[in-house]
């Protein structure tokens, strides 16, 4: 059967630009645009506080352009659909942060994907050549993408949200950059994500499905661009079975123990209902109770999506008092708020 894309879009080459324009127009109290591809906080942080810059491909909304704001990151450089901006545009983002902060410290968050690493790395080098005070930190969490022991080769997935929230809260409190890097690295070291896809999505650029999957199959470990994982399809499971499987793998990989407490993110990939996510979260709680594990203010919803892919990812981050305190700190971005 021929595949036919049904999406409410205009010209494919204008997707990224049009969606950012819409997002910023809808949340103009919170964010504004500088140039064509840079999204900034409407009310910037005070000078002297570390500016957080992020650049990644579009098409994952609300992540992460929807999280620019108070207690979160300061500058988002929006790329094309599923493709990070080139170094010149990321450099523009860094230069903008440099101006806002009056020459203060800047931290660039880089999701561990080839394009993001090459372009983000080049932009940081170029900015340093201009005398800008900038460092970067690599974000990775997907246990499907590289075996245990090769954590730094893992992809950045929805668990990156923990790093954004914690780094953002610290920067807001006025921590210096080396402290932010230290705590964010702790979060990365303690965070694990695993995704499951039950139905593929269509690339809005090409109109083609990103992978194929039979009606009675699901895929464990797909990437955020719908890349089928290294593992190949498994038989379809119900909510309890799939949550048991995913939790088992995350707990084993993270060497999590009974008594541990976690930040939990049940992330919808785009077409999965909150109904399904709550049913799965219920099973997570049963598992946690049985294992004497605890969760702290869990987050359930669409955070980092892959178009209309059906499925979810589960992210866990082993929490300590510092992480919990920063997770609870106030935030005010278009798609994530924590009340004071």
């Amino acid at each position, binding site marked *: 059967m021929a595949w036919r894309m049904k999406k409410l879009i205009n010209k494919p080459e204008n997707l990224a630009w049009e969606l950012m324009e819409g997002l910023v127009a809808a949340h103009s109290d919170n964010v504004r645009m500088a140039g064509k591809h840079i999204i900034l906080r409407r009310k910037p942080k005070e000078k002297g506080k570390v500016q957080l810059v992020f650049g990644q491909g579009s098409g994952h909304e609300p992540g992460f352009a929807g999280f620019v704001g108070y207690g979160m990151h300061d500058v988002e450089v929006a790329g094309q659909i*599923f*493709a990070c901006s080139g170094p010149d545009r990321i450099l523009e983002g860094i230069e903008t942060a440099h101006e806002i902060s009056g020459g203060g410290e800047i931290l660039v968050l880089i999701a561990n994907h080839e*394009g993001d690493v090459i372009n983000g790395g*080049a932009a940081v080098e170029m900015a340093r050549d201009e005398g800008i005070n900038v460092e970067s930190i690599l974000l990775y969490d997907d246990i499907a993408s590289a075996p245990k022991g090769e954590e730094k080769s893992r992809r950045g997935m929805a668990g990156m949200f923990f790093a954004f929230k914690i780094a953002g809260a610290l920067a807001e409190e006025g921590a210096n950059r080396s402290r932010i890097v230290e705590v964010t690295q702790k979060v990365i070291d303690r965070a694990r994500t695993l995704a499951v896809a039950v139905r593929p999505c269509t690339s809005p650029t090409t109109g083609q499905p990103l992978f194929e999957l039979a009606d009675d199959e699901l895929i464990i470990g797909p990437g955020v661009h719908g890349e089928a994982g290294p593992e190949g399809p498994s038989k379809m499971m119900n909510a309890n079975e799939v949550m048991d499987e995913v939790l088992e793998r995350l707990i084993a990989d993270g060497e999590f123990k009974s008594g541990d407490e976690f930040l939990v993110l049940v992330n919808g990939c785009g077409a999965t209902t909150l109904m399904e996510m709550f049913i799965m979260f219920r099973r997570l709680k049963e598992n946690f109770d049985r294992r004497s594990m605890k969760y702290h203010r869990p987050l359930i919803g669409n955070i980092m999506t892959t178009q209309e892919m059906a499925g979810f990812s589960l992210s866990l981050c082993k929490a300590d008092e510092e992480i919990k305190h920063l997770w609870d700190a106030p935030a005010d971005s278009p798609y994530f708020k924590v009340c004071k």
Partner: protein
Amino acid sequence: MPIERVSREQFKTILGNVTAAVSSKKEYLSQLDSHIGDGDHGFGMANGFRIGFENVSQTPEGSIEHYLKTLGFSLIKEVGGASGTIFGSLFLGMAKGAKGREEIALADFCAMLAEGLALVQQRGKAQPGDKTMIDAVHPAVASLRQSLTEGLSLVEAFERAAQAAQAGAEQTKNMIGKHGRAKYFREKSIGYQDAGATTIAVIISAIAASLASMEP
């Protein structure tokens, strides 16, 4: 008489033909990318070349070096991701090799493509055998060098280079992906041809066809 060198205007025509060739193959290149990537390689490339060549066309003055730089920067800006920067770097490297040249002979093409390859490797850190576009560029450079020592004509040399690039692209089927999204498929990436290497084969074959059409 076979042509020995191309002028600035002829070089611009070649870039136009390369742009048209990438555009005509965009579905095929994307389809290759769909197995071990995210399936939009050809579309991204076609869009980048289209805008890049528009930018080249809008600068009536300028040198071959300038055209290559314009195309390279356009690819980096418009395509994004790893592929935009890597393909952009290829043309920026070629621009270095074309510095000060009014006309381009086989020896210049050799030097340009070698500079392009060097910049790509510096930026992307990939080696031959890693299942990337380098697996097509590398044999093309070697083939051009060989043709230069054998004293072949420009057209003959590019016909051979196009074959070498095509063979290199096909060889990637036997390789395990070490970079980009193909990396996560590990040994499951075997059997699939790399889309970037195939784009290089398309580009070099378009250069060969352009040169052949310029023969009197």
